[in-house]
């Protein structure tokens, strides 16, 4: 018999069911969690992340008076990398969950382009929508949303992520509500040798403390052959080389590059994917451990639902595991981030150089084979760079892994330049020693997975 039943705060002001969509209602039972949940609208900048508020004139297209700062203005090279793709028109820093729906509705990527309903899956509270469109069948609802246009789909949205997106209303246990993740994690487990994985049945709560986030904070694509179905590219594994292999096999591309004509795959916010390759994940440290660290509320320990940058209070987010002063911890993170920026910049300059050199080579009439090979390298360089650029920890979630990804991007840019000078794909392959070492690594990795 457990001790903890004694002094419960009263949790039964209202009864919660699987159609209690409104977080305010849940808030009556759990006022502390609700209060901090509402605070995701606060905007506080850190050295690199956090959120930088920018005032703006409301227009008909975009009624927001305050937005998050633009990443395109901060780094115009992005417009070159994404030339011809909506991201080159509007791309801002992430801010709190409270804004997820409005920021999507009013981004020029939506107002100036046609987008499918698929977008909505990560920007609104979905259980209600899936129920409604699928007549109580989540998977049917998922297919239905994906089949709509964004304008149609968004009509069904009542607000950003809510309690029911992460919690089972009867038991309050964490639950996965997104079919894309249910499918994706099953693919990943299968790649790791575990068949028939059902995340809501098989995951521990400690795992769920990251999985609930991984419903959205992941690299994804829309599978055109499956009605724009939201898909996570994990069936080869979740190392970037495996994701790249997946896309190569699948043939998926997102856009044709305006300057070079290369076919490009776009990467988006792979926080979960990178974290999973880092030392914190290896040590069992979850997203919630750092981004929803426990806080004291009266005589109770509560999970902080104001999900934001852990650097805003390292004492709370890092302090139980790392006894260092806040200054020391922030300095450690910023050292990692500054180093990341230097490597990222070198990589980015290299990609820009490649893009313009391909452009020049096309003008100079260099032969098609060379141009095509250079374009393939551009795609790889672009995807690998984008993968860590669009991840939002600025190198922190897996410092040396992230650096190694940049290295692969840089290597592809270099090879692209050499392709333009007439080197063939064969000549540009890794040396025999490098290949032998890769195989040796491969063996260790697969042995470790067994």
């Amino acid at each position, binding site marked *: 018999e*457990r*001790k*903890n039943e004694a002094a419960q705060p009263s949790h039964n002001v209202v009864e919660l069911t699987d159609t209690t969509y409104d977080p305010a209602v849940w808030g009556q039972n759990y006022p502390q969690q609700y209060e901090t949940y509402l605070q995701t609208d606060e905007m506080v900048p850190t050295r690199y992340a956090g959120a930088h508020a920018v005032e703006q004139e409301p227009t008909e297209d975009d009624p927001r008076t305050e937005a998050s700062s633009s990443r395109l203005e901060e780094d115009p090279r992005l417009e070159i990398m994404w030339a011809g793709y909506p991201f080159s028109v509007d791309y801002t820093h992430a801010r709190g969950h409270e804004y997820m729906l409005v920021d999507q509705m009013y981004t020029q990527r939506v107002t100036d382009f046609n987008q499918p309903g698929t977008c909505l899956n990560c920007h609104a509270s979905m259980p209600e929508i899936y129920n409604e469109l699928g007549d109580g069948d989540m998977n049917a609802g998922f297919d239905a949303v994906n089949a709509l246009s964004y304008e149609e789909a968004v009509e069904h949205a009542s607000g950003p992520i809510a309690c029911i997106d992460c919690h089972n209303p009867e*038991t*309050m246990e964490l639950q996965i509500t997104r079919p894309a993740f249910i499918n994706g994690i099953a693919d990943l487990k299968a790649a790791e040798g575990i068949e028939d994985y059902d995340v809501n049945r098989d995951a521990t709560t400690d795992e769920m403390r990251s999985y609930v986030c991984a419903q959205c904070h992941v690299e994804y694509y829309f599978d055109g052959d499956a009605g724009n179905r939201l898909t996570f590219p994990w069936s080869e594994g979740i190392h970037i080389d495996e994701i790249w292999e997946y896309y190569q096999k699948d043939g998926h591309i997102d856009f044709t590059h305006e300057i070079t004509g290369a076919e490009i795959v776009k990467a988006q916010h792979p926080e979960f994917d990178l974290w999973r390759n880092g030392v914190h994940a290896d040590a069992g440290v979850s997203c919630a451990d750092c981004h929803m660290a426990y806080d004291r509320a009266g*005589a109770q*320990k509560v999970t902080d639902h104001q999900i934001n940058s852990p650097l805003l209070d390292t004492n709370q987010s890092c302090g139980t595991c790392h006894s260092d002063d806040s200054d020391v911890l922030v300095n450690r993170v910023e050292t990692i981030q500054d180093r990341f920026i230097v490597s990222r910049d070198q990589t980015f300059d290299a990609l820009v150089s490649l893009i313009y050199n391909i452009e020049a080579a096309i003008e100079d009439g260099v032969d098609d084979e060379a141009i095509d090979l250079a374009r393939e390298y551009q795609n790889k360089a672009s995807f690998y760079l984008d993968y860590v650029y669009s991840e939002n920890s600025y190198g922190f979630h897996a410092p040396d892994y992230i650096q190694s990804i940049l290295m692969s991007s840089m290597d592809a840019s270099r090879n692209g330049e050499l392709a333009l000078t007439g080197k063939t794909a064969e000549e540009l392959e890794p040396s025999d020693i490098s290949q032998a070492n890769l195989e040796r690594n491969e063996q260790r990795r697969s042995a470790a997975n067994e």
Partner: protein
Amino acid sequence: MAEEETVTATEQPSEAGPARQRTWLRGKNVLLFLAVFVFGSFIGVGSFTFLYANGIGYLYDEPEGCAQCHAMDDYLEGYNKGSHKDVATCNDCHMPHDNLAKSLWVKADNGFWHALKFTTGDYPTNIEIRESNRQVTNEACVYCHGDYLSGVHEVRAEGDELDCTRCHETVGHAK
């Protein structure tokens, strides 16, 4: 000492906790001694060390009792620097709080292995807690802090409790 009230398994630690918690199980020391002694007697070496190391001390709750073995010195030192020095003894964290039979067994089991390994010197430089003992400790945390954690545990399935040492590894022994 003996006249102090024994905190039973069903009681909550009170505000005046520290002084009283020190004494839990005190009343059962004699029984414990017998159990361990009998167990240990089957193995000559173990019981030799047990006596040599003042085995009776092992059964008391004074941390110094545990640190009769130099193998425990570092942990006593860490404990003395740690946050629980004034509120919990070694046994508060390393003995089960829920039932006597189990705690007798854990104590005999540990007493036996400690003595044997100590005598043979066959233990690592940095001792690693066994999973079964880590569970015992985790339950000890919940025993004292259950109230504070009730809201957090409520949303978890039975048997899926928080692993306290993932975040609070050093509360017992500062490094």
